[in-house]
């Protein structure tokens, strides 16, 4: 049992290390970072002093060693733009991203799970078809188009809510709704499929045959069993949420990590890009680890058998 959790944790740590290393070298593929970060007209001296100042004159392996030993002590280098520690960017903007992501994630579950359950219970009826058509539409609607459509409807046309910014609760509504609606389509589809599978099991037929009321069969026997794959799927969808966060934050000028990442990329501010990439990778790997551990707790068969993939 402890062996399972230790193996999973070790695996997550190794994945994170590989990811961090990969991104470190990817971001240094272009040898002439100075030219990229300054501009095409920069003099050779300016480029040289830039490279010396930020340590780009050292060998790649030396740079890597300095960076990784620094990172382990919480030093992620400095922004090229304002010379502040890159980690400050994360500290400043993380609360905003968490606020939006948690609100959006909660909405995703509140909309997606009941919709999927309703579609599965009313399988084959007009309710099912309506919900699944909406889900197919939601799945195909890019979050930035949905975000702008909501912004136009509620901020421009009805003038009920602010269009951009993050200073009040009203500012949170549109971005969180965009985030939640886009994500709920996938959840509804998956919940429906998981629920239909459980409803087809012999023990459900047995429960029904025993004369249990239909609502009790669904609530007491079907939902708990369908919950395991749905919880797993929610954990694994954190990766897509990172993508949503970047786009939704940009649409609504929400000052979070995603928006910071895009402006750092535009400014070629590599130290900031690097730390943000590490933060996003940590989120996703951490969420996957959490799912693995939860799964092991919920389903003893997995930890004893070692799981499907080790």
């Amino acid at each position: 049992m402890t062996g399972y959790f230790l193996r999973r944790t070790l695996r997550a740590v190794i994945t994170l290390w590989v990811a961090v290393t990969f991104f470190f070298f990817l971001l240094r593929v272009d040898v002439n970072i100075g030219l990229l970060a300054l501009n095409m007209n920069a003099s050779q001296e300016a480029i040289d002093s830039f490279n010396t100042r930020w340590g780009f004159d050292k060998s790649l392996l030396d740079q890597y060693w300095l960076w990784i030993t620094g990172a382990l002590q919480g030093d992620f280098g400095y922004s090229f733009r304002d010379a502040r520690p890159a980690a400050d960017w994360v500290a400043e903007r993380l609360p905003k991203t968490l606020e939006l992501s948690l609100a959006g994630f909660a909405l995703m579950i509140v909309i997606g799970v009941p919709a999927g359950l309703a579609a599965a219970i009313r399988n084959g009826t007009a309710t099912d078809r309506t919900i699944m058509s909406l889900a197919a539409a939601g799945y195909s609607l890019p979050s930035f188009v949905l975000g702008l459509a909501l912004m136009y409807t509620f901020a421009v046309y009805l003038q009920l809510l602010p269009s951009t910014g993050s200073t009040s609760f009203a500012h949170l509504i549109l971005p969180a709704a965009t985030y939640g609606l886009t994500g709920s389509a996938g959840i509804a589809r998956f919940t429906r499929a998981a629920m239909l599978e459980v409803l087809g099991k012999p023990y459900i037929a047995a429960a029904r045959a025993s004369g249990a009321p239909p609502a009790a069969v669904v609530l007491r026997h079907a939902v708990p069993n369908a919950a395991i794959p749905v919880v797993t799927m929610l954990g694994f969808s954190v990766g897509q949420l990172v993508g949503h966060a970047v786009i939704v934050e940009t649409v609504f000028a929400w000052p979070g990590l995603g928006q910071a990442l895009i402006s750092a990329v535009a400014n070629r501010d590599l130290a900031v890009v690097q730390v943000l990439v590490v933060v996003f990778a940590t989120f996703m790997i951490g969420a996957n680890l959490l799912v693995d551990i939860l799964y092991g707790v919920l389903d003893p068969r997995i930890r004893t058998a070692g799981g499907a993939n080790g």
Partner: protein
Amino acid sequence: MVEVTTVRKAAGTPWSLRLAAGWLILVLILALVGPAFAPYGVNEQDFAARFAPPVLAGGTWAHPFGTDQIGRDLFSRLINAIRISLLLALLGTLIGMVIGSVLGMIAAHFRGWIEDVIMALVDFQAALPFIIFAIAALAVFEAGFWTFLLILGIAGWERYARLVRALVLQAQNDGYADALDSLGAHPVRIYLWHILPNIFGAVSVQMTINFPETILLETGLSFLGIGIQPPHTSLGLLVSDGRPYIFQAIWLVAFPGAAIFLTTLSVSLLGDRARDRADILTRKD
């Protein structure tokens, strides 16, 4: 089994699928021949007609879909953007399919450490959000058309690799590969001429899932301003260009946004249908 298929046929093709197919054909025709018939150039400016509304909102037929802040004709820009976005999505899907399938076949053919390395790469790719890869890569490489296409192409390769590896392992047990092998056929010949046609159905279903995702990735990155760069245009870049003018010219966002939505929706609907059919064909019970 047989009953299910006959009932489906008797019910006919649902209108939603007909519309989806119709839209895709229209979009393909626009992408192929549209730019030749576009009334204006992509960057042709008509300062006298800035923010001209579309016909539906009281505009004139001179600019049926309206114009933007410097008087560029949205209809002409839209046709060109559809061409670029479709081209990127199609080629991107194909590149991912080829990379993933080749690696999947290599893994299944050689087994041993080669398979371990490839599958470790697959797990690694699946463990991280692809959009972060794409953004990091676009931070260092100049975002030219080909670089961007390659990045879009890499998206999703790991799922093809997993799928093809599993399918090839299954095919190797089917006997026909063994038979060809004992006849002295070259492995490359066996894979390309015999195994590939057998697994292509499943691979093409995966492509119908990958294609809309590639459109969403491309338009998303272009919307963020780090994908396709002007003077080229893409549906995502058009939405991004129109965004500051959402208060006075909603059509600049609405038309390209709708084009992305309808295209991804159509491919998804047809893909779902193909997947249902494939399930019926392959289900063993």
